[in-house]
């Protein structure tokens, strides 16, 4: 049996109420109004860092060496040329002898990568594959996309052992449909008339894929426990499932009002949402949307009970949020405006890429060392043991800190050092099990900081050197 073995979702902590955006930009096109809120990646997040966050959760409890490959899907890669799957794999401390690929250029890339992963496992060329889909979607200020586009990530571990939802089949429709696109020089989407995308695309392709799937596998609507597909146009979402003959209680909440359109990760996220509430035996259809539609069929197994409540999925992230009550800050986070950062913002030292390559396991993977003589974990990696009673030389083994929790030893909120989001909060962290280092703290308010507070680490953009085109990825502490 092949299928989903584990899952992990991720939504950034920041939410912005669409009314805030509309209040600032609604004067431009009043018809853009949409209710609810959307997720906003923090200034130090991108599709790569959020993919890592979802995958960390997905892989909890699995030996990282177990993973045979990593597929990454996004329409918002931070790089035109640099395989993001390999950044993610290094951050996750996966072994290097694995297959990787980036799937991109369509919001269907998430489901496409899923099908490809299943095929690889089915063909016997991998025992399992990690699939990460992630997007930080930006719409032009004042556009309807600005209101609907959102940020999030989802990861699925696919394999043939411990399957929680078995792969039962798929049905794809693929069209070169020109509802929206970006050229290599475009930052934001260009789009044809909204009604065109809705009437000729969304309302047609999803039903075509789902009904194609049902007839391909001789299924009736009543055989399906949950059908999940994006609610890009919430009113049409209802029309679609009605036309397909599904009852409202068979339809998974599309989360458009509370989450937004998170691109490639959208269908996977609502699939995870469906799994969170599923029971063994349930048949789930999930369909995506983007240049056509992929409809996928899963059947939940008994194994689902072992994973329920163990993963962060969707619910936890929908509950844990912080209001970004400031449209200008949102624009600054997404680089639509460049506020004055002062002289310190310009003093970004060059990055020695030979060094970051040599020490990639330390920097991207947050691996330090543990002394084989005295057992002391230490970061960064040391040659000479830091324990004053030991001091052993060259007796070290790699020790991964990224999956360890810790506590705040001391902290401050700094208004002098440069950060795009002052105050710059940083702290010395003592890791559970040993080891101490200092980290920036993110997704956190200074007022809530306390000595002894539990934290974990999160992969982030530590700095950006715009002159050199360098994104300095590293880890920050976040409250648990």
């Amino acid at each position, binding site marked *: 049996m092949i299928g989903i073995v584990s899952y992990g979702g991720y939504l950034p902590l920041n939410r912005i109420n669409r009314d805030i955006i509309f209040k600032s930009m609604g004067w431009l096109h009043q018809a853009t109004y949409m209710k609810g809120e959307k997720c906003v990646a923090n200034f130090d997040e991108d599709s790569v860092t959020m993919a890592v966050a979802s995958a960390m959760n997905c892989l909890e409890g699995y030996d990282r060496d177990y993973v045979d490959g990593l597929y990454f899907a996004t329409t918002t890669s931070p790089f035109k040329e640099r395989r993001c799957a390999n950044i993610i794999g290094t951050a996750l401390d996966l072994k290097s002898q694995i297959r990787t690929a980036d799937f991109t250029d369509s919001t269907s890339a998430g489901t496409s990568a899923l099908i490809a992963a299943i095929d690889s496992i089915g063909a016997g060329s991998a025992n399992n594959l990690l699939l990460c889909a992630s997007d930080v979607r930006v719409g032009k200020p004042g556009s309807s996309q600005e209101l609907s586009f959102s940020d999030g990530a989802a990861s699925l571990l696919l394999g043939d052992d411990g399957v929680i939802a078995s792969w039962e089949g798929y049905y794809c429709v693929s069209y070169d449909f020109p509802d929206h696109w970006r050229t290599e020089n475009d930052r934001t989407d260009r789009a044809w008339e909204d009604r065109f995308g809705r009437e000729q695309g969304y309302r047609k392709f999803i039903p075509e894929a789902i009904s194609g799937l049902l007839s391909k596998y001789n299924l009736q609507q009543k055989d399906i426990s949950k059908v999940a597909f994006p609610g890009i146009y919430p009113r049409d979402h209802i029309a679609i499932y009605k036309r397909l003959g599904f009852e409202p209680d068979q339809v998974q909440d599309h989360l458009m009002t509370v989450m937004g359109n998170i691109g490639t990760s959208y269908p996977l996220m609502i699939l995870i949402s469906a799994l969170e509430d599923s029971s063994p035996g349930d048949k789930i259809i999930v369909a995506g949307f983007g240049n056509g539609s992929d409809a996928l069929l899963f059947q939940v197994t008994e194994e689902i009970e072992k994973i329920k409540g163990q993963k962060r999925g969707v619910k936890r992230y929908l509950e844990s949020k912080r209001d970004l009550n400031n449209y200008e800050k949102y624009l600054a986070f997404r680089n639509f405006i460049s506020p004055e950062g002062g*002289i*310190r913002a310009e*003093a*970004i*030292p060059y*990055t*020695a890429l030979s*060094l*970051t390559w040599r*020490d990639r396991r*330390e*920097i991207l993977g947050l691996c330090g060392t543990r002394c084989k003589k005295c057992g*002391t974990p*230490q*970061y*960064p990696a*040391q040659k000479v043991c*830091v*324990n*004053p009673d030991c001091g052993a030389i060259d007796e070290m083994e790699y020790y991964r800190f990224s999956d360890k929790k810790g506590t705040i*030893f*001391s*902290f*401050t*909120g*700094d*208004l*002098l*050092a*440069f*950060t795009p989001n002052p*105050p*710059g909060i*940083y*702290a*010395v962290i*003592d890791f559970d099990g*040993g*080891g*101490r*280092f*200092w*980290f*920036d703290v993110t997704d956190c308010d*200074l007022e809530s900081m306390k*000595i002894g507070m539990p934290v974990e680490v999160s992969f982030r953009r*530590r*700095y950006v050197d715009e002159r050199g085109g360098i994104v*300095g990825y*590293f880890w*920050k502490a976040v409250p648990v």
Partner: protein
Amino acid sequence: MGEGIKDKVAIIGMGCTKFGEHWDKGSEDLIVEAFTEAVEDAGIEKKDIQAAWYGSCYEELNVGKSALPLSRTLKLPFIPVTRVENLCASGSEALRGAVYGVASGAYDIAMAMGAEKLKDTGYGGLSEVSTILGTKNRVIFPAISAPGAFAMMANRYFSKYGMSTEEGKRSLAKISVNSHKNGSINPKAHLHRIITEEDVLNAPIIASPLGLLDCCGVSDGAAAAIVCRADMANDFIADPVFVKALQIGISSGEELGYTQWDGTYVESTVRTAARTYKEAGIKNPREEINMMEVHDCFSITELVTYEDLQISPRGKARNDIEDGFFTIEGKIPSQPDGGLKCFGHPIGASGLRMLYEMYKQLQGKAGERQIKDPKIGLTHNLGGFPQMNVISIVIVGL
């Protein structure tokens, strides 16, 4: 430890510029000014100096790398000159070179010079620290600043001793008030404003819990010392000052890499102080030290330094502060010249600037600030952060 440096070397001349925002002066001007005062004080000529050490931290903001800038500025006649850099201890490190050079017998007369021209950085506060951290640390260290690193110690200290932030900040405020009072009557100080506790408490936050008046200023300055063999000292001046001890201590990395250190003191100061007292033959520092210039880059630094130097018991420095122990009339006047608070911190110069005050006080030449009859003075520098640092401690006396 060897037999140490005690009474082997004498200070026979010192010079110190006014510290401040010298928009109209470069490092060269400041060096010449400090040098001129020092050689006149010693009653020697340039040709008498056999070797020199030059301390500066940011070579790119000053006159460049190597010792060439000092030699070329002063036109030193092809003598051995060495540039030293050890963060905020750079000035004291230059002194160490000169003192050890003389004590070794290699030279009879040597000079230590420290200078820094911070106001050419364009920064309020020290310039971006990431440039001095090293290529790897830049990538993995948080976006720290000096006040932030010390603020973490303040939060830790308040927490350990059960002080609310308000209580802690009030104790720290008294430290700044004392320094500003002393500095207000020092013509060489940068800042002359007398401040109140309320001023300190109401100052804008720089790095919580430290506010603007918990932090030292940023200024330009230079200071110099002429040292010679102790047995020659009276050939030059009637009131030489003798080096009783001179120690440097550097973090091993344990503080930030191992989980033993509790973050409320500076391990290097503790270790270095023990060695310094041993070298000077001091058994009870609280009784035997008469005055101090400690590294008050931030008020919290001064507080923990009192404890690290074994002047105040652990956790009790605030009681001594409360009791006026460190005021000019107190048992051990501290920062009699106004400290880094009022002088600012041109890094390479600071250690020698502190020594200048101890030297003048021991000679009874401190004017309005004169402490009654001091015999032993101590200077202390802390470079870096509480979590990893460079310490220098110098004891001088009659």
